[in-house]
């Protein structure tokens, strides 16, 4: 009897050992690449208990932001069977059935002194964990911004990099018919909503540029019948004329420390060159002196270099030079017969520009290390690319049915979104910097 029991336990031990050995010799799989498909997410309409929110649909704003980035695909509202507004009320298996990886739920409620609070929670449906929660207090005037902050939160928690939805853009709108036209400089939310007029003139306004701190816009105005560069504080509207020399005063761009602008000035013979102008005292530094056209200079993010357009080799191409007097310029672009209006990505590694390809002017991005150029937009007359402050998207202007329109494109070129802009002909969009956090 005893012997038999010993035998059995021995056999069991042996089998167990074999099982363990088998588990160790398991199949090993190596995953070296993935896909760029958007991440499936459910953004449930927020519960609302305030009249003070003006009927604002926070979830709809978040959905449009996230889908416009190309990184997310939102579940259709019609397919939602429940509408939880708290993470604790999310029945995970129900939402997994719809193959969602994440769910956003929230509620809008009154706060003190007529303010409105938005509470949002983000749940990872794969493991059921609540991975973020935030409470934002907004005034009726800042509710849209708060909704974009919700988009930023979700984007960052899911993708590991900051969003840039709670930012602003500036652009020029042209109304009326020649000879009676109105030029308007407009600042709007990054999705085109909440547009407001910053400056207006019957004579051309052009080339808006944001200061690095987001407080100022520089632009060119012909209001005194000749070009001049103006500086205007966005919040107060206070402005001053920076430079109005005889000839051309154009293409302002702020240095990263907001102490200087790169600008284009013409010499007495009409030749265009790149200069730097000090905001403190107006002192000028001449950077280029080539007989060709040198214009549209922008600073690299470290402030040491300038990238500008020059036709010194016969056709417009992008060149780089140190941001100093009489700098030596080196050609940067070599693909195609036309590359102009450079803008640097926030990390300084990518150069956005307008390129002529297949008979169309398109937005393209060149990797500065490898020189590889990718076309992001289709044309035919796209212009003025400008990076979002997180580098994940670009805004640009294109033409549709003979009208100027604004659009964004993801950095991989896969997702394009038209922006709402109902001020007639719109052009020269520029994406502003990240804004300080809401209180």
């Amino acid at each position, binding site marked *: 009897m005893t012997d038999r029991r010993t035998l059995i336990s021995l056999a069991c031990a042996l089998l167990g050992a074999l099982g363990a050995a088998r588990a160790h010799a398991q199949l090993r799989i190596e995953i070296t690449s993935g896909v760029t498909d958007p991440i499936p997410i459910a953004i449930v309409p927020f519960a609302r208990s305030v009249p003070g929110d003006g009927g604002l649909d926070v979830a709809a704003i978040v959905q449009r932001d996230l889908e416009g980035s190309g990184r997310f695909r939102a579940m259709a509202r019609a397919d939602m069977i429940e509408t939880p507004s708290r993470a604790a009320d999310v029945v995970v298996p129900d939402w997994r059935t719809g193959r969602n*990886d994440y769910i956003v739920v929230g509620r809008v409620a009154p706060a003190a002194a007529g303010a409105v609070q938005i509470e949002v929670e983000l749940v990872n449906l794969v493991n059921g964990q609540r991975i973020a929660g935030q409470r934002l207090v907004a005034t009726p005037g800042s509710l849209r911004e708060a909704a974009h902050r919700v988009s930023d939160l979700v984007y960052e928690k899911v993708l590991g990099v900051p969003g840039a939805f709670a930012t602003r853009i500036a652009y020029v709108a042209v109304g009326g018919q020649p000879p009676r036209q109105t030029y308007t400089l407009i600042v709007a939310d990054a999705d085109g909503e909440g547009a407001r007029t910053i400056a207006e003139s019957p004579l051309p306004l052009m080339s808006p540029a944001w200061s690095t701190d987001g407080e100022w816009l520089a632009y060119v105005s012909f209001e005194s019948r000749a070009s001049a560069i103006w500086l205007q504080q966005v919040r107060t509207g206070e402005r001053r004329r920076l430079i109005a020399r005889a000839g051309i005063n154009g293409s302002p761009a702020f240095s990263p420390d907001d102490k200087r602008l790169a600008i284009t000035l013409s010499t007495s013979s009409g030749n265009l060159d790149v200069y730097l102008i000090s905001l403190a005292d107006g002192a000028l530094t001449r950077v280029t002196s080539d007989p060709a056209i040198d214009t549209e200079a922008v600073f690299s993010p470290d402030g040491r270099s300038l990238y500008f357009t020059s036709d010194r080799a016969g056709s417009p191409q992008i060149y780089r030079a140190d941001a100093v007097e009489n700098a030596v310029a080196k050609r940067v672009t070599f693909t195609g017969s036309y590359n102009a209006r450079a803008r640097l990505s926030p990390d300084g590694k990518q150069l956005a520009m307008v390129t002529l390809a297949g008979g169309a002017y398109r937005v393209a991005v060149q990797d500065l290390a490898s020189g590889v150029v990718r076309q992001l937009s289709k044309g035919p007359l796209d212009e003025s690319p400008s990076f979002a402050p997180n580098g994940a998207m670009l805004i640009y202007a294109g033409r549709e049915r003979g009208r100027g329109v604004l659009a964004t494109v993801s950095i991989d070129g896969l997702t394009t979104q038209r922006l709402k802009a109902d001020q007639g002909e719109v052009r020269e969009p520029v994406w502003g910097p990240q804004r300080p956090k809401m209180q």
Partner: protein
Amino acid sequence: MRAARASGAGAQWRDLITAKIMSEWRRPPTARAGIVCTVQVTQVPGGEVVAARILSCNGDAAVRQSIEAAVMNASPLPPPPDPALFERNLEVVFKPHD
């Protein structure tokens, strides 16, 4: 002879599972070259993934979430060409090349 056939079928199964998981891995921008994450995956016959446990990972929270989602969304995993080859436990290593 039998061993060779078995290993050929095993390699084929491994490729099927690899392709399925790759097609479900929505890489976040932070999943770059240099990231190595090992996941212990437990499946039941039929290929349903019942557990995915990250054993080691030098990526951020976004990378970990994306990996866990890739494995769970790849469920059910493709069956082996020969049922005798079925393995309950898999070690899946996420190691992006670029």
